[in-house]
């Protein structure tokens, strides 16, 4: 209590420092004047009295300092002194300080950046009440569990009453809408949502109401809810917006509510929808969400869903039951936006960053130790002059305590920049990362790391700095006094280097494999020529009558052809599911040796394409021809199959001219194979690997619905934005009520869909490899430099006895070479294991890829050599006379 009061008074004194100083000065002046007055009274002349008073009072400055000194806490004073001393000695060694601060900054920066991403992706719940209990329900084919199937609205109605682990079910599907609220008309992002959506998110509308079950009935009056952004930008946040009638995809809808701010959809693409319309039984359905009841885990809900799916997997929803079509259920927390493999990769990174920081600290401890050894003469002399061991230890600690926060501050800058880079490179699937920022929790984490690491790597040198008795130290000769170190310490240091090298190798190999895989992927041919290939998707305001369909298709085709040039455009989209895909469930049948025989083709893609399609996309026709719709007024019942489908249905090689039956009963149609197209190659697991390796192409005019996509080939480097503008003008002029919904270049789509994720992984791991390598280089340098310092005398003797420079170099490099070889060996084994964990990121590269492993080792060798050469040069420069004379 008393010491607390003293502390408070002390603090008050320093806060009022100026006025306290003035008080003391005035007080002393008063004292002097009174003294002079007394002396005067005793008969001295005024001048003499003042002079005498000043003399008697003595050195006033000294007195003031004494008085001020009373208020100084001795502990604080000494600590300040330690820090000042540490600051001075660090400034005298700028290279050392820079290396330490930078090493630490890399470690901390990497940690903060990765932790931020992990926090956002894996830990932070969705920004809704009980957001961490919102789950997404999925089913997938057991054969291909990574690719979820769409869940229809009937799944919602069937599952909801039977799933007791979940509540507040809602389905949502995002799409682009044609929004017509007077000129200008435009396309906006919106969502079709089931009425339970607001209940799921537990949000209230900013204005008006949410959807009710009545809104979702077939034939109900069409209504809509405006997104908050659109309400603000288009209607200036006016309350009059309720009751307004707006055209959405040609349907007049009444605005009944406005969504609250930041109401994003808890799927992968977390954007705020601009409008929402109710989902009814006719809707295709979308992503199905629900909330876990309190205390229920996602796993328990998944077991329940699995049992239901198992019972009903012969239901018509998902096609016929067969071994191919066995279903697995998935219940995943909506906040976990990564699949299992990605989560594992991120976790590997998180553990690795922790390890990296530990190693960086160990490294810095090593550097500080080395520094302590280099200063042992100074330390011994200071102890001999009376500095206590505690004081010396505190000096050593003060240095590291200063270095910690410095590294932390720089680390934060690195983390911030790194985070920008990570966000810039993130795959589209992680677009939610846009909102990532370094939050207080992470700042706290960084501060803790900085301080803890400061203490951690400060302890060893602090203990060392007073380890021996002065007598021993002086007797042994100062140069060898402090630090031969014992065998255990030497082994520890060596062990650290081996671990660092091993870690670097693991990351180098991982980065190397990812680079190899990336290059392979990038060069992958899709089976068609994607350079300069563009797909345009049109949107028609009203569903055209069947009779007008062909005419509109042809008009759109001509619009594009005018822009692209004759023979360079065709109806149809990118095949292979690059953007989207069309799958027609059969039933299919072929003419077999024993009559008509049905065939099961659950994953066969069925694009409807126009004339010149194969020519335009550059997909080779191996046999036969493509479609020529101009020769037939009506349906030609022609078919082009890819090679894989041809082999599967007609293994004898007589596919051309063979017939395939589509549909059954009255709607059965026999199609004739007129051409065999090359197979598509779909890299990696992006589209579920082999999912769409079968294709049957059919003429656009037999699709039974509008084919609203056109592919065209443009010169390389043509801007899609410019192309879109041109096409929009042309489409308006054509006057069939069509607008351009999207223009996608195959190259950039491929980049986004196929390359973005591997590139992301590649950059993360590559960055890590670079950091780990830099850290081990520093560690290696420290240990070799230390060895040289330790053996200066020995080297001097050797040189004096006639050792050649090469022998000296061998001596120095030998030690580091052994450590690097050992670490490298261990690293190779570890890397082989780790690369298996990375398998899901690697396309076309085996985990044991010799190029990646060889490259990693070569790079490590070069860096190790560079790190050793600097101290080696010092060893070669040892002057034998000086070395022998020292001490």
């Amino acid at each position: 209590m008393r010491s607390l009061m003293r502390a408070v008074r002390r603090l008050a004194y320093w806060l009022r420092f100026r006025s306290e100083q003035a008080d003391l000065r005035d007080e002393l002046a008063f004292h002097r004047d009174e003294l002079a007055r007394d002396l005067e009274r005793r008969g001295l002349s005024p001048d003499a009295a003042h002079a005498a008073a000043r003399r008697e009072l003595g050195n006033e400055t000294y007195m003031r300092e004494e008085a001020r000194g009373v208020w100084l806490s001795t502990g604080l004073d000494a600590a300040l002194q330690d820090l000042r001393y540490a600051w001075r000695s660090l400034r005298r060694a700028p290279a050392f300080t820079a290396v330490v601060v930078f090493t630490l900054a890399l470690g901390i920066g990497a940690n903060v950046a990765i932790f931020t991403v992990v926090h956002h992706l894996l830990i932070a719940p969705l920004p809704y009440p009980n957001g961490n209990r919102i789950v997404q329900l999925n089913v997938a084919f057991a054969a291909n569990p990574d690719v979820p199937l769409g869940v229809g609205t009937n799944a919602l109605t069937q599952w909801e009453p039977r799933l007791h682990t979940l509540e507040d079910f809602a389905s949502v599907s995002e799409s682009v809408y044609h929004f017509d609220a007077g000129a200008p008309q435009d396309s906006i992002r919106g969502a079709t949502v089931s009425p339970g959506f607001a209940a799921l998110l537990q949000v209230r509308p900013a204005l008006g109401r949410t959807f009710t079950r009545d809104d979702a009935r077939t034939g109900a009056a069409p209504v809509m809810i405006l997104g908050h952004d659109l309400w603000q930008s288009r209607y200036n946040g006016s309350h009059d917006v309720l009751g307004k009638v707006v055209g959405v995809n040609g349907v007049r809808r009444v605005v009944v509510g406005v969504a609250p701010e930041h109401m994003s959809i808890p799927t992968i693409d977390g954007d705020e929808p601009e409008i929402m319309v109710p989902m009814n039984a006719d809707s295709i359905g979308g992503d199905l969400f629900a909330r876990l009841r309190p205390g229920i885990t996602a796993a328990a809900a998944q077991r329940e869903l699995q049992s239901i799916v198992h019972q009903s997997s012969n239901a018509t929803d998902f096609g016929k039951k067969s071994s191919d079509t066995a279903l697995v259920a998935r219940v995943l927390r909506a906040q976990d936006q990564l699949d299992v493999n990605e989560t594992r990769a991120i976790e590997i990174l998180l553990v690795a960053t922790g390890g990296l920081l530990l190693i960086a600290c160990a490294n810095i401890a090593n550097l500080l130790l080395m520094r302590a050894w280099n200063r042992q003469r100074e330390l011994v002399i200071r102890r001999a002059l009376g500095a206590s061991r505690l004081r010396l230890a505190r000096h050593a600690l003060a240095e590291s305590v200063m270095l910690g926060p410095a590294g932390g501050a720089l680390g934060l800058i690195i983390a911030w920049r790194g985070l920008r880079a990570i966000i810039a490179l993130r795959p589209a699937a992680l677009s939610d990362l846009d909102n990532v920022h370094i939050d207080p929790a992470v700042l706290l984490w960084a501060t803790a790391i900085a301080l803890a690491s400061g203490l951690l790597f400060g302890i060893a040198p602090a203990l060392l700095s007073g380890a021996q008795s002065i007598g021993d130290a002086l007797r042994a000769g100062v140069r060898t006094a402090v630090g031969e170190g014992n065998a255990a310490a030497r082994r520890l240091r060596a062990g650290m280097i081996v671990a660092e090298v091993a870690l670097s190798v693991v990351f180098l190999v991982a980065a190397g494999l990812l680079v190899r895989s990336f290059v392979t992927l990038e060069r992958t041919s899709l089976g068609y020529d994607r350079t300069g290939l563009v797909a345009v998707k049109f949107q028609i305001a009203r569903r055209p009558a069947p009779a007008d369909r062909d005419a509109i298709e042809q008009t759109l085709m001509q619009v594009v052809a005018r822009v692209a040039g004759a023979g360079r455009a065709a109806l149809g989209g990118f095949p292979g599911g690059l953007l989207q895909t069309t799958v027609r469930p059969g039933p299919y049948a072929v003419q077999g040796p024993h009559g008509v025989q049905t065939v099961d083709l659950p994953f066969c893609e069925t694009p409807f394409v126009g004339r010149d399609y194969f020519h335009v996309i550059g997909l080779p026709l191996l046999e036969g021809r493509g479609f020529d719709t101009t020769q037939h007024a009506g349906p030609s019942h022609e078919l082009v199959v890819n090679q894989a489908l041809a082999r599967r249905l007609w293994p004898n090689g007589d596919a051309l001219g063979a017939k395939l039956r589509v549909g059954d009963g009255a709607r059965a149609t026999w199609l004739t194979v007129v051409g065999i197209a090359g197979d598509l190659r779909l890299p990696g697991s992006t589209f579920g690997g082999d999912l769409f390796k079968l294709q049957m192409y059919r003429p656009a005019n037999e699709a039974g619905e509008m084919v609203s996509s056109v592919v065209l080939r443009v010169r390389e480097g043509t801007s899609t934005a410019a192309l879109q503008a041109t096409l929009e003008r042309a489409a308006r002029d054509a006057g069939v009520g069509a607008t351009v919904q999207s223009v996608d270049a195959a190259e950039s789509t491929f980049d986004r869909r196929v390359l973005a994720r591997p590139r992301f992984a590649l950059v993360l791991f590559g960055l890590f490899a670079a950091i780990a390598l830099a850290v081990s280089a520093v560690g290696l340098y420290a240990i070799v430099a230390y060895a040289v310092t330790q053996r200066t005398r020995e080297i001097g003797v050797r040189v004096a006895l006639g050792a050649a420079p090469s022998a000296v170099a061998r001596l120095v490099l030998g030690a580091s070479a052994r450590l690097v070889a050992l670490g490298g060996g261990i690293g190779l084994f570890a890397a082989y294991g780790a690369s298996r964990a990375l398998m899901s990121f690697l396309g076309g590269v085996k985990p044991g890829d010799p190029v990646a492993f060889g490259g990693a080792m070569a790079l490590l060798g070069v860096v190790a050599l560079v790190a050793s050469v600097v101290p080696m040069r010092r060893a070669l420069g040892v002057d034998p006379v000086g070395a022998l004379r020292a001490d």
Partner: protein
Amino acid sequence: MPRPTGQSELLPGTLDLLILRALRAEPMHGYGIAQRLRDVSKDVLQVGESSLYPALQRLLLDGYVRAEWGTSDNNRRARYYTLTAAGRKQLVAEQAEFERMIGAIHAVLRLA
């Protein structure tokens, strides 16, 4: 510094006690304290200003005295020190301790 004869260095640690004792009757300024100690001790105890003011600061820090600006006899602004309750308690304790110590020293001087 050579000192005139008849003046004594204080025993270490006694200055605080003397200041507290001098302040027991009434608040005083620094010069007044020095004068009082010299007068009462018949010029034996010459408290050097260089130890008086740091001692006063120490007492302020310990909370045994309080300082306020007031007006001196000759109408000048002077800083007056007042004994606090804690200071009173401390005075009693220190005085007892001092007397015990003096008694002990006397005993040693007489008998040893």
